[in-house]
């Protein structure tokens, strides 16, 4: 940090104070650490420190058999477990050239979109908390809790599901799954509406978020932002539309885009995405076919052919990519994950230029990072 003292005369007293925010700070969303150089209340410079949650997941994957790796992918982005499981399963399926039954694809899409809603709801909750509003968090947690109760009845676990299998699912969904989800969607809409009415257009909230950390579309692309952070800047890019995977090309849904690329756009885009996900789930429920879901592989050990594959998917936080190299054994030779939160974090320094300390919290909140994925 040498460039912070441009305007300072050589023998003047230093005016910047080094403020260490995190890893134990209530609004760094886990164990993220920011070192802020502040001049009074203004942030002059920021340096992110990551790695407090580093578990070596990618290395651990090399020691696990293919179906065991799913449990590790659950723990990357621990707010969007189904999405992570799906992208890994798709990688192995692509490597092996497996066909997945229609029904399991549909169930995967339903669960992934519900998980996206759950993740975005948690985002709305924490965004409110970062800005100082307490009640939206409770409302959103209520909605998320309902989704997780559904997940529990489907997969047996509320967060680390381990439900998707290479080539299918662990087991079929419960009998009352479809009516249950239909009821749930109504409640999700209600919860989102309520939190939306309470927070989104509140003048104080707008004053806190609008025009904060606005970045242009060019900058967003240059920094490799994906997901809501990119779309907030007005770039119409969503892997579900740009390179449709699974059965996403069969649904009619919009990709909401923001225009100014500021924190409020990032916030409101996620609110809109919840409604779009609800639309997708509704259509998927209508189209849900019958059939087998369990993988034809059964419980057999998997030995994919040697080769490498790259698969990408749209996670709640952006584009996740899995690069998988197989040497023909029962364990992956190498797995590299492109975590969306980690790439989004790279724009932090640009966003926090000349902001206030209070803004720093909001900007980090609007990036919506998950440290399990950043540190891996």
């Amino acid at each position, binding site marked *: 940090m040498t460039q912070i003292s441009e305007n300072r005369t050589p023998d003047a007293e230093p005016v910047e104070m080094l403020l260490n925010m995190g890893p134990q700070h209530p*609004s760094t969303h886990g164990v993220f650490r920011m070192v802020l150089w502040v001049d009074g209340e203004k942030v002059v410079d920021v340096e992110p420190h990551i790695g407090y949650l580093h578990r070596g997941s990618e290395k651990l994957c090399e020691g696990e058999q293919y179906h065991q790796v799913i449990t590790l992918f659950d723990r990357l982005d621990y707010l969007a477990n189904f999405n992570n499981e799906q992208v890994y399963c798709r990688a192995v399926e692509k490597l092996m050239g497996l066909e997945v039954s229609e029904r399991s694809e549909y169930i995967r899409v339903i669960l992934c979109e519900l998980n996206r809603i759950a993740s975005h709801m948690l985002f709305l909750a924490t965004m409110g908390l970062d800005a100082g509003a307490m009640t939206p968090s409770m409302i959103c947690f209520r909605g998320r809790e309902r989704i997780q109760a559904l997940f529990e009845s489907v997969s047996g676990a509320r967060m680390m599901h381990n439900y998707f299998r290479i080539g299918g699912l662990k087991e079929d969904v419960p009998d009352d799954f479809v009516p249950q989800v239909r009821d749930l969607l109504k409640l999700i809409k209600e919860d989102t509406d309520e939190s939306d009415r309470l927070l989104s257009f509140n003048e*104080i909230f707008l004053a806190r978020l609008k025009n904060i950390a606005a970045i242009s579309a060019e900058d967003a692309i240059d920094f490799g932002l994906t997901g809501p952070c990119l779309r907030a800047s007005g770039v119409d890019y969503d892997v579900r539309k740009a390179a449709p995977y699974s059965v996403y090309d069969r649904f009619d849904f919009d990709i909401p885009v923001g225009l100014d690329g500021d924190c409020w756009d990032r916030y409101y885009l996620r609110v809109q995405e919840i409604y779009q996900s609800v639309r997708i789930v509704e259509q998927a429920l209508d189209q849900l076919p019958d059939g087998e879901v369990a993988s034809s592989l059964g419980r057999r050990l998997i030995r994919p052919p040697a080769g490498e594959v*790259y698969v990408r998917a749209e996670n709640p936080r952006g584009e996740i990519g899995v690069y998988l190299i197989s040497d023909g054994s029962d364990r992956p030779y190498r797995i590299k994950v492109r975590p969306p939160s980690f790439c989004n974090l790279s724009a932090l320094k640009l966003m926090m230029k000349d902001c206030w300390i209070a803004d720093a*919290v909001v900007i980090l909140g609007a990036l919506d990072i998950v440290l399990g994925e950043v540190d891996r």
Partner: protein
Amino acid sequence: MPATILLTVGLADFIWIVVGLFIMFTVLSVVVLSLTLLERKLLARLQLRLGPTRTGPMGVMQPIADAFKLILKEDIIPASSEKAIFWVAPIIVVVSAFMIWVTIPGTQNAVIQNLDLGLFYIIAFSVIGILGLVLAGWGSANKYGTLGGLRAAAQLISYEIPIIMVAISVGMLAQSLDMREIVNAQGSYIFFLVQPLGLVLFFIAGLAEVGRTPFDIYFAESEIVGGPFVEYSGAHWSVFFLAEYINTFAIAALTVILFFGGWSGPGLSGDWGIIWFLPKVYLVIMVIFWIRGTFPRLRIDQLMAFAWKVMVPMSFLSVVMTAVYLFYGWPAWSLTLMSSAGLFVVGYLIYKRMTGPTKLVSQTRIRQQALQDQRRAASQAPAEAGGD
């Protein structure tokens, strides 16, 4: 009864003062306990939660359990702190909070020492608490604490001015700074009816003064993690919060006394007026908690801009309007009109300050919608299916 010179007062007076202070301390402690429970329960209700339920029936013993826990907790003093200042700061805060209550009357007689310049005394003493916060922030040798202390100084001193000005205009209306006189002057009509602007300014500035949402900037949990209180624990920390709740109660009581006629109300006279007084105060407090459960927090620059660009000019305007009204001896409704007009100006100013982003938002939504339609029209054309 000039209580300050103990030599000149008789023994009976002295004993009354000691007993009165003791009663005040006890009553305020009970009030604070009730406020903590009320806040937790009410916030829980606002957020579809239950609040405390385990300690006693419906959790009513929770504040006592909290108090015990806080007193029994280890009182940690950071090694690098300024020990003396660290120790003294909470005491300054809590003493100033208690001192205010010496002259706030509950009813005509339920007051320890009524002063002719009661309102002046209250405002003068409430400023001392700020010193304690600044000292606490600085003495704990913590950067968050220092930031919080400086924020507290900036915020509380800025919002002191509107409070003083509104208090002056109320004093002008009542022709006295004696709290009892102010309440008695509201016999025919309560001052809220003639000074709605004053009430709004006083209430907003009062929220800022006690650091309640949306002005809880000097101890913002999600930014500077408690600000001046960040290094405090155990009894010291509880003393800070004792002071905060007493101040909240004081602001609510002052709002009621200055604008809602204090203990005066239909049907009850004399000391029975407390039955009118307490519900009014608790109602105001519940509004404070309600606001806490709804609003996000402002940023420090927005807060200061709001203070100096809206609150201070409007509070001066309120004094001027009261003066004009009194000088020309106009009927009361004329002041109501003027004050309401002022209120509209405040509303307009807030609206204009806040409407910038709102307008941006609506523009953004229109443009978004246009883009959305455009893209949907484009996607009607056969889309190319792409694989991974």
